[in-house]
């Protein structure tokens, strides 16, 4: 028998244990074949049993070797709890079980800072679940009918001017627009947000793009998708579907060579440009794409060799906030002839209100939106320390920004979009609606999109293997064998179906408060069952 010393890594140290029931197992091997982490293997166990093999009692002690499935004891191949083994098992003989007594966090750091993808596992508080849409139209004013009335569910992306700054002249009894105004696109108040080609597999990214186009062309819902910071597929840029896309530029500037070279061939303008300054999941840290995911097509689109790609935490060449506003916005606006709105995305932070105030003072009228990404935002890869311990909850921060604008009479001038945890529990419509009542013009969602494609990750440490290139759902990987697991049509269809329901759910929330256009800033429609939340957000406490 092997000698085991106390410092030896054992199964009990790992986050997930395999619960294997040999009596149900038929040794088909499906679980081992399905596991992308290689966390389980076929092995042999010695058994000693007393058996009776005759038609009458004839007990006899036997020693046997039995083939079994067992968990590998390895930090790099530790089970992530994705449950593919259980999903594929025809006999319910195997499943991962959370191990609350694990020592993984202590042990895994011997390999250097732990990295993973997905979402925070620590700060998954649900402020929005303490808020109820509590001001229902009863007697004083009529509720609307969510199925039969018309609703204007649209949000601005672009710089909006104060009425006294509008270039309108009176001609007779009419106004005429006599000068240009900044471009503004009125889009659906939920953006499919910012997951790059590279972080996502080609199929996952294309499925979201496909769903976006379908929702626009077949359902009349102007959803937009933001490309993320990994560039854009050339064929999409030269098609008329480009108009549904918001192009992102982050500190790494990946893919912009192909974007610029596609300019002369574009049939239509994109919906917008989003400058990413920071990301809620890892504020103060730049983009990170592990080499495992830098496949040849990613190398081509991004213009880099196979290597782990780090982006700097800030844009090189931006010296100050004024610089960010003017230089960055100016360049990107200029690239598209000032026809395309340009917005900026920051990680929510204690400084967000200062940043927003600076933007609101923007004398160039060029900032087309302020996107706030909270601590519950997702990531393809980040240091675990960043994911769980840096960032800022988005709900109160967005509210603070809105109220800062209200105090100056500038609400709505630079649209506020917020994300990070929207739809975490699957109810994106409720989350979006509450954020809108608190002052957001719209919300951005990322993790929800991949969950609709089949991602099994959650905030309780399940899977979150997006950084490894071994995504069991073929979503966050570039391994063609895994990408092949993802059915693009089925994935896009489930996004479409979800968003159609979300649209009717939004109407189900607007109708009872008697509104046919979005109640941006209508905080009187909300009550909170948590006194602290009510006080912080300036809404009514109810119990």
């Amino acid at each position: 028998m092997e000698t085991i010393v106390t410092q030896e890594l054992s199964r009990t140290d790992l986050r997930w244990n395999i619960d294997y029931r040999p009596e149900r197992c038929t040794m088909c091997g499906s679980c081992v074949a399905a596991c992308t982490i290689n966390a389980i293997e076929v092995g042999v166990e010695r058994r000693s049993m007393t058996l009776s093999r005759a038609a009458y009692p004839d007990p006899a002690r036997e020693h046997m070797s039995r083939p079994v499935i067992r968990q590998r004891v390895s930090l790099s191949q530790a089970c992530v709890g994705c449950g593919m083994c259980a999903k594929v098992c025809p006999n319910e003989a195997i499943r991962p079980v959370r191990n609350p007594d694990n020592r993984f966090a202590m042990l895994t750091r011997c390999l250097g800072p732990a990295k993973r993808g997905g979402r925070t596992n620590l700060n998954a508080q649900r402020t929005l679940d303490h808020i109820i849409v509590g001001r229902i139209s009863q007697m004083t004013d009529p509720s609307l009918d969510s199925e039969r009335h018309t609703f204007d569910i649209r949000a601005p992306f672009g710089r909006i001017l104060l009425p006294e700054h509008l270039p309108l002249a009176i001609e007779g009894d009419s106004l005429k627009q006599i000068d240009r105004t900044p471009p503004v696109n009125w889009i659906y108040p939920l953006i499919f947000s910012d997951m790059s080609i590279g972080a996502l597999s080609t199929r996952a990214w294309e499925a979201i793009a496909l769903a976006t186009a379908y929702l626009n062309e077949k359902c009349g819902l102007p959803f937009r998708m933001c490309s993320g910071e990994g560039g854009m597929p050339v064929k999409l840029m030269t098609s008329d579907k480009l108009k549904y896309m918001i192009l992102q530029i982050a500190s790494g500037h990946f893919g912009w060579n192909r974007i610029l070279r596609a300019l002369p061939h574009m049939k239509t303008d994109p919906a917008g440009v989003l400058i990413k300054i920071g990301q809620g999941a890892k504020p103060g840290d730049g983009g990170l794409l592990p080499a495992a995911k830098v496949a040849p097509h990613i190398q081509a689109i991004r213009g880099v060799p196979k290597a782990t790609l780090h982006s700097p935490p800030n844009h090189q060449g931006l010296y100050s906030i004024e610089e960010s506003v003017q230089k960055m916005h100016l360049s990107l606006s200029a690239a598209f002839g000032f026809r395309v709105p340009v917005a900026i995305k920051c990680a929510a932070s204690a400084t967000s209100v200062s940043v927003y105030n600076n933007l609101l003072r923007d004398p160039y009228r060029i900032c087309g939106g302020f996107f706030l990404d909270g601590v519950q935002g997702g990531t393809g890869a980040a240091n675990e320390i960043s994911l769980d311990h840096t960032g800022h909850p988005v709900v109160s921060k967005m509210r603070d920004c809105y109220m800062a604008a209200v105090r100056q009479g500038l609400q709505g001038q630079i649209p506020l979009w917020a994300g990070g945890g929207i739809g975490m529990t699957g109810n994106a419509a409720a989350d979006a609606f509450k954020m809108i009542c608190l002052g957001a013009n719209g919300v951005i969602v990322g993790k929800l999109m991949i969950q609709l494609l089949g991602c099994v990750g959650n905030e309780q440490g399940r899977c979150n293997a997006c950084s490894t290139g071994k995504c069991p759902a073929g979503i966050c990987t570039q391994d063609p064998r895994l990408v092949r697991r993802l059915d693009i049509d089925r994935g896009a269809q489930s996004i479409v179906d979800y968003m159609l329901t979300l649209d009717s759910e939004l109407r189900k929330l607007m109708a009872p408060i008697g509104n046919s256009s979005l109640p941006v800033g209508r905080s009187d429609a909300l009550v909170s069952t948590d006194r602290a939340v009510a006080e912080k957000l300036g809404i009514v406490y109810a119990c």
Partner: protein
Amino acid sequence: MLTIETLKTVNDATERMSTQDLLLSIEKAVTDGVTDFTIHASGQHDIGGPLWNTEGKPLSFLVTNPGQRVGSMCLENTEVTVEGSAPADVGWLNAGGKIVVRGDAGDTAGHCAAAGTIYIGGRAGTRSGSLMKHDPLYQAPQLWILENTGSFSFEFMGGGRAVVCGHGCESMPSVLGARPCVGMVGGLVYVRGKTDALPADATLEPLSSEDIAWLESGMEPFLKAIGRQDLLGTLSRWDEWHKIVPHVHEEKHPDIFSVAAYRNNEWVNGGIFTDVLADDFGVCGLVARGLYRQRIPVWDNARYQAPCEYNCPSSIPTQQRYNLWMALSACAFSPLIFHRSAF
């Protein structure tokens, strides 16, 4: 015959009888056997129903300046005639009465009427005819309007027949206002003149001979009640009429155009990444076999070998293959780079 005045002057001030006082005095008179009333109202609500003579004699009301809900909850054998216009909810929940408004009716005329007849000699307001119903035990309700209705007319209509004659409305973009018949599930609306676009719930259709016969039999009594028999000829040109018919429940499920069909027919041809990556969009299960099996080595021979060696029909010597594998293993991630190979 009982005449009731509802306004009187006391010390310069005008005093008005409350709705409650008026309705109680009418009720008492009906109990006492009065069947004919003239009521000079001043905005009192609910005049006309629900009332009945215990011997089944018809009740008749001639009303001036009623308030809302004139003729509401009216029962059979009750006839209410309004000289001039009436405000909202004329004939609300009409359960069998005959209500004639010689002038205009306000908003939601005929709202929820389930029996009886309502005649409007002028216009009807917003949401008129909404939620009309038909109780199969009784005759279907009728709502006749000489001119036009306000917007959102016949919302959620569930039964009965409405007739909008569009008299004098030839220049109007819609004699039914904007967004008529939203949520309509039953009944019929006959209309003469232009209408706004109909929602998916209903369609505009030509009249059948049965429709024409029904309209012909009803038009004359209607025009007589409102004192406009002169219009019979004008309003009987049946080619100027249409009817609005709700879709039956089964018709309401539109064809579903799948995303898969969209990708094949309308999406960027072949996919958006074909310039950098070939993908036939085939799907593997969690347990893949053959080419896409997870645990077999990935050979990058085509990329790293000389073409002659790679294409050699007799394959390559075992020790060279072994060397190649060793070399590739040194690069930690190379197994993940997948290229189609001869193996």
